[in-house]
């Protein structure tokens, strides 16, 4: 069981690392421009199917754009949204959670109320409403998701801080004459990072899926940007005769989210056993 688990960690790390590299080096990986349309070469199937052409490994879409190029650039969008959302929501959630857990009392009551209020907001509905009001762009999607997805960070950071705050080494730091900011930053934060790392992977997977869902509904990343969710949306009219137009981005999305979750589970086990100290 343990062997399988740590295998999962490596598989997850490989998938996420590979996607990250693809996203970073996207311009070098594809000979084609993901935006260049060529209507005479529409819906060419991938190379291993009948009618495939060697210059388009994954074929072309309904506007004749190279599918591999769009997939590779789409990885950029997904990773960018995943990472930026986690950074934004992590900053908000961890600050609130640590403040509540550390100070307790009235401050904690207020922060708990804010968390509860956030939990009662229907995520997709608000995201849809905001994006349709403000207009869709990459920044708006990141900001909306970042401002909505912090509650798990806050809940976990708050509880972890409460546990650590009462440990003797915090009392010792206090007696040693350390200031409050020093105690929070150096004694408490480093000791609550492991559960937060797991939350970060969960939130990243969720953010990528939500972006895909928003883009599928036409309210996420605006066309012609190559987002995986948008690719599925644009391809859905052709799925009965050219199933690969939705299978290629769909499988990529599945693999990335699966990989992130494996990485998160693996990290959790690793940090729990204390092999990373």
């Amino acid at each position, binding site marked *: 069981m343990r062997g399988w688990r740590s295998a999962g960690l490596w598989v997850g790390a490989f998938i996420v690392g590979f996607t990250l590299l693809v996203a970073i080096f996207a311009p070098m990986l594809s000979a084609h421009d993901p935006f260049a349309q060529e209507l005479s070469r529409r819906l060419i199937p991938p190379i291993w199917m009948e009618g495939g052409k060697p210059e388009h490994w994954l074929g072309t879409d309904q506007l004749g754009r190279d599918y591999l190029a769009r997939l590779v650039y789409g990885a950029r969008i997904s990773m960018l949204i995943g990472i930026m959302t986690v950074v934004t929501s992590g900053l908000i959630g961890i600050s609130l959670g640590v403040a509540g857990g550390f100070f307790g009392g009235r401050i904690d009551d207020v922060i708990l109320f804010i968390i509860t209020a956030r939990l009662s907001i229907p995520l997709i509905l608000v995201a849809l409403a905001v994006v349709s009001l403000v207009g869709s762009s990459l920044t708006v999607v990141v900001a909306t998701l970042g401002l909505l997805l912090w509650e798990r960070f806050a809940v976990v950071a708050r509880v972890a801080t409460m546990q650590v705050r009462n440990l003797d*080494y915090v*009392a010792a730091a206090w*007696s*040693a*004459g*350390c*200031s409050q900011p020093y105690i929070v930053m150096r004694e408490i934060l480093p*000791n609550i990072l492991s559960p937060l790392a797991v939350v970060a992977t969960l939130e990243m997977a969720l953010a990528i899926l939500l972006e895909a869902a928003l883009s599928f509904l036409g309210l996420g990343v605006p066309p012609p940007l190559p987002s995986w969710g948008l690719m599925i949306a644009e391809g859905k009219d052709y799925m009965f005769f050219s199933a690969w137009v939705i299978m290629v981005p769909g499988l990529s999305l599945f693999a990335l989210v699966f990989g992130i979750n494996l990485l998160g589970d693996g990290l959790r086990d690793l940090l729990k056993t204390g092999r990373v*100290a």
Partner: protein
Amino acid sequence: MTTPLIEVRDVGRQFRVRAGLLAQPKRVVAVDGVSLQLKAGEVLGVVGESGCGKSTLAKIILGLLEPTAGEVLIDGKHLASLDRKERARLIQPVFQDPFSSLNPRRRVRDVISLPLVAQGGMSSPEVNRRVDEMLERVGLDPSMADRLPAHLSGGQRQRVAIARALVLRPRIVVCDEPTSALDVSVQAQILNLLAELRRELGLAYLFISHNLAVVEHVASEVAVMYLGRIVEQNQAASLFRDPRHPYTKALLASVLTPEPDLGLPETGLGDAMPDPANVPPGCRFHPRCPVAIERCSRDVPATQRKEPSLVECHLAVPA
């Protein structure tokens, strides 16, 4: 007469505990009207069973908890008026559990140097020199400085905690059960180290323990706490030779002897545990007292003093 290093005046601490959302909050009296003094170079032992408020008292004296009544003076100055650096230079703690008193993510060097770093204004070679000197003083090899606490044994960890407490050369060390989480074989080493360091550095200890044998070994004066109050206090030798309060007598009788044939000692205390949320009227010890008379459940016994001893019991006079 010199000012005592610690002077605790009528200190009390109550906690409000809420059992449920709509339940009436209960008042738990952890410490109630405690007064004591610690003079330079002395070791004041505080004994009592679990839940009697001795750790709360230690936290109040360290400034980790605000008292709800009374005041604490450290070296003649109000504890609340000291700034954190000044307080750190006067008083330092050694906690019970060396597994929770060291930050698991910091190396031994960073743990020990924390009080120096918090004071500020010291160059890092100077800090390192002081840490190495301190490591040697507590009997650890300087090569341990780069280890993480996870790679040390319980006894080594407690030595690191002691080094951290002493690196600023404080005048008072509050030891809150410093040996009770350690293996028996290590306890004596740590106690001897504490005694040795006290002699060398001229420290005063407030030594909290439930273990009478340990307190008898280190303390010059002993205060016995029961349900948040000091019920008897005397110089260590006199207290162990001539206990006056029935609770002290029972505690002394409860010390286990090495002979297995004797069985468990009979203390006459019964098995009712004291509940700080529900302090009995009259003498707080009367429900468990083997010699209680009718008056004990009615009148609160007065504090009878005859320097240096003190006792709170209707049926006893100070030694």
